[in-house]
């Protein structure tokens, strides 16, 4: 659409919405609004927001929406590790029900028994799926849950008088960035172990890393390689023996539902990305829900309030003196919870394991297709072992042969009506990486389509490399003329007002 910035559409005097005016009696009684404000605090010049009629606002945002590739409308295998599922429409209808949309978080608990029951029952399901003893549904995303886990680890060691000493967190290179960043934010130092030839750290490395300074471990399994760490319980034991706690980042849990649990591996804490594994929408990156599960001995540290049931009534327990406190103002992103609850009830016992089975089957089928079609694709580490739900692929050979990099291919993928694919988290341990996660929401034809597109681009890399290098061509927008503008204080602009100033426009 080549849609202008909304400020460019502004025309003085236009109105998009008229707010309800107070009744005449109120106006009369209260008097002029200017006199209801301390001297000097009345804003004489209203904020310079854009001025548009309602149709224009609607049309503008519809155009922008149409320039966005949501998972519900495309083959979104692309965003590996993100588990881009179908977000059922019925769940949106339910989340819009006034019984959730119009609830205030401080209503008397007698008036919110329905939503508290949903919290409680969803927690029960998570407990069963993970083997943990108690969950908090406060965190609004995965990283938020990881941070909360780090807070709990901090409280645990503080309670034992060891916090000053225990400040080291052990993690692995293919574990998610937030497992490194969130503990660091909480005040820990990270020890990041490199992968062995299996794709995950060796037991020896873990042993070498622990000490009396060890606060704990934050780790994913499978990590983003899709390789299941079969020694995970030994890792946990080593850290436990050293006096640390173990947190299991389950962002990649989609393939282990009903298959294997955090408890059996010995973890003290784990989390689920509800917006990945339990089918709620990603919302352009939030709100999500990061459900944090802990074993009973850590339950007292969870953020307050917790949702409890006394046999007759659900209630919120604020009286938790050892809690790490609040990590968000209210008791979690409840709208996400409603969708997740509806999703798991629709899937149920009969199909939850099917989710994991189809996820691994889909992945292994796609991997086979890709490797058959494209000899240049490598899958480093642990040769011969099947990946579970995704793999970290490597385009190094193609890059060497043609100069076409994974970022070139990534941009070109967008030209085929697919979301452009995800390369990998930084740093790139695997060179020229690509990560695809064909979860259970995709059909065989989606997998075949994806493989065909990559094969096509691979052929182009030889026959017409420029077309790949200059991609995208058919996306909503093109390559930036100069990426460095984004790192240049004189040119970057995150607001229109800044852009106008820097460009010298009026």
């Amino acid at each position, binding site marked *: 659409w080549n849609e202008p910035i909304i400020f460019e559409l502004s025309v003085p005097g236009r109105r998009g919405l008229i707010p309800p005016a107070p009744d005449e009696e109120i106006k009369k009684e209260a008097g002029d609004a200017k006199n209801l*404000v301390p001297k000097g605090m009345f804003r004489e010049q209203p904020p310079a927001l854009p001025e548009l009629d309602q149709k224009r606002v609607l049309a503008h945002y519809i155009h922008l929406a149409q320039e966005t590739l949501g998972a519900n409308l495309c083959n979104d295998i692309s965003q590996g590790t993100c588990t881009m599922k179908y977000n059922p429409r019925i769940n949106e209808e339910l989340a819009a029900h006034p019984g959730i949309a119009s609830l205030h978080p401080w209503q008397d608990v007698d008036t919110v028994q329905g939503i508290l029951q949903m919290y409680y029952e969803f927690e029960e399901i998570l407990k069963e799926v993970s083997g943990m003893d108690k969950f908090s549904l406060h965190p609004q995303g995965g990283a938020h849950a990881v941070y909360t886990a780090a807070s709990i680890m901090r409280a645990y060691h503080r309670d034992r008088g060891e916090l000053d000493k225990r400040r080291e967190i052990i993690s692995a290179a293919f574990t998610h960035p937030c497992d490194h960043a969130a503990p660091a934010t909480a005040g820990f130092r990270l020890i990041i172990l490199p992968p062995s030839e299996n794709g995950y750290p060796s037991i020896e490395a873990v042993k070498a890393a622990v000490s009396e300074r060890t606060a704990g471990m934050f780790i994913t399994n499978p990590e983003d390689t899709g390789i299941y760490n079969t020694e995970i319980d030994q890792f946990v034991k080593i850290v436990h023996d050293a006096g640390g706690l173990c947190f299991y980042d389950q962002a990649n849990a989609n393939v282990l539902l009903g298959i294997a649990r955090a408890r059996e591996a010995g973890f003290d804490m784990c989390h689920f990305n509800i917006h990945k594994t339990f089918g709620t929408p990603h919302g352009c990156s939030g709100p999500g829900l990061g459900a944090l599960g802990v074993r009973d001995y850590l339950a007292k540290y969870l953020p307050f309030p917790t949702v409890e049931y006394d046999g007759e009534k659900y209630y919120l327990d604020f009286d938790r003196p050892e809690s790490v406190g609040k990590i968000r103002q*209210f008791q979690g992103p409840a709208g996400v919870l409603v969708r997740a609850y509806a999703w798991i009830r629709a899937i149920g016992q009969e199909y939850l394991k099917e989710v994991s089975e189809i996820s691994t089957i889909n992945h292994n089928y796609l991997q086979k297709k890709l490797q058959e079609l494209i000899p240049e694709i490598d899958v480093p580490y642990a040769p011969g072992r099947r990946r579970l739900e995704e793999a970290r692929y490597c385009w190094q050979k193609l890059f060497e042969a043609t100069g076409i990099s994974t970022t070139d291919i990534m941009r070109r993928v967008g030209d085929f009506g697919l979301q452009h694919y995800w390369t990998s988290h930084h740093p790139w341990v695997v060179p020229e990486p690509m990560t695809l996660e064909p979860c259970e929401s995709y059909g065989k034809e989606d997998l075949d389509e994806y493989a065909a597109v990559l094969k096509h681009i691979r052929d182009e890399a030889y026959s017409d490399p420029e077309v790949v290098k200059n991609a995208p061509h058919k996306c909503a927008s093109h390559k*930036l003329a100069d990426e460095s503008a984004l790192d240049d204080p004189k040119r970057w602009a995150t607001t229109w007002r800044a852009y106008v100033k820097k460009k010298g426009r009026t």
Partner: protein
Amino acid sequence: MEEKEKRRAHPYIPNSVPEIKEELLKEIGIESAEDIFGQIPEHLRLKRPLNIPKAITSEYELKKHVTDLLSKNKNCEEYLNFLGGGCWQHYVPAVCKTIMERDEFLSAYVGEAFADHGKFQAQFEYASCIGELVDMDMVNTPTYDWAMACATTVRMASRMTGRGKALVAESISPERLSCIKNYAWSATPDIEMVKYDPKTGLLDIDDLKSKLSDDVCVLYMENPNFFGVIESRGQEIADLLHSKGALLSVGVDPLSLGVLEPPAHYGANFACGDVQPMGIPMSYGGGLGGFIATPDEPKFVAEYPSLLFGIAETVEDGEYGFGEVLYERTSYASRDKAKDFLGTMAQLHGIVAGVYMALMGPQGMKELGEGLLQRASYAAKKLSSVKGVKAPLFDSYHFKEFTVNFDGTKKTVAEINKALLDHKIFGGKDLSKDFPEMGQSALFCVTELHGKEDIDILADALASVVGM
């Protein structure tokens, strides 16, 4: 599991058609998924079916089940609601709903600008509108909520000044204070509270002076504060802080900015707040999203943990493109070496708030703000007419929210609120536990959804409840 049930494909799982599943297994060259899961050591496997509820595969039955649960709640459309304090019942325009529900925005994630151009532009426009509201040039993509936003400004200020002590006004929400303590701990383990004047509810400047030292990095305060009181001496406060090399961070209700001067106008270095009042349903507190704004100076920009979406020209003539400003700052790029951490936060709410601001425009914000001032003024007067009730407790100007003291009624807020439920009214937030010095007081909120009639109903109900 019934045999029949087993053979029906699930509508959410296309390859659960048994024939397709078989075909894929055959292509992979295995018998069943167990051939893959078999690599997991036996002792780590779950050897029994999960004990979770059975599937409700029929969409209608699912809808009925969930709707029945939700209908157990009493909601703020059925009840007259005067709760606010961090989550407010404002009008959600139909266009906001429409855009929020579009599958494109709803189900997109971390695609980059050339593929998700519309998402980037919508976020950029959101930030641009916030920038106008607060009159600052740099705005982040939304974080979880106001609490996370204000705690982040404390961390940023600490890094910028290299100091480890923060001052926080006592007149902020206890929830946000708890978040600050948790989140800022590793940066500012030392947090000191600045008192409010018990008569006016304004910041106690003498107390501020007494606590302000050379190791203070920032004062975080709110305006209007948690009690709805409009602070009038912002510039004086800012000057004090700046004189010691400290920064000022001010939390605001964005809806106040059509009628109140933004923090930047009285010297604040950070403005932050929540987007929820701008077109996002309350959803039991799920509708939040935090914004942070600062001057567009490298020393500030370098300290943001958030993604920052910047505009830039593309290779096509006249085309705008977008990308991430100073990406290396973020934990996506630099992991434990980054500025704090980043993750899935609240971008959809940011987009919707952008739609709201575009609909409202300057005049809409002004008219709305004026009406909120007037309604709060009327409501406080009206409630004060009930014997034993004092409103507002503080002798100050109030925006949208105000405190009501019930000491004269000899009843607790808890008792009164329970009794109001019989009138289908949600009374104000009970402050007696968090602010015992205020006696039996509650925080009441009136919004543009309240007509005179609604306020009068509350006054009548209160009169009947306090029985005086």
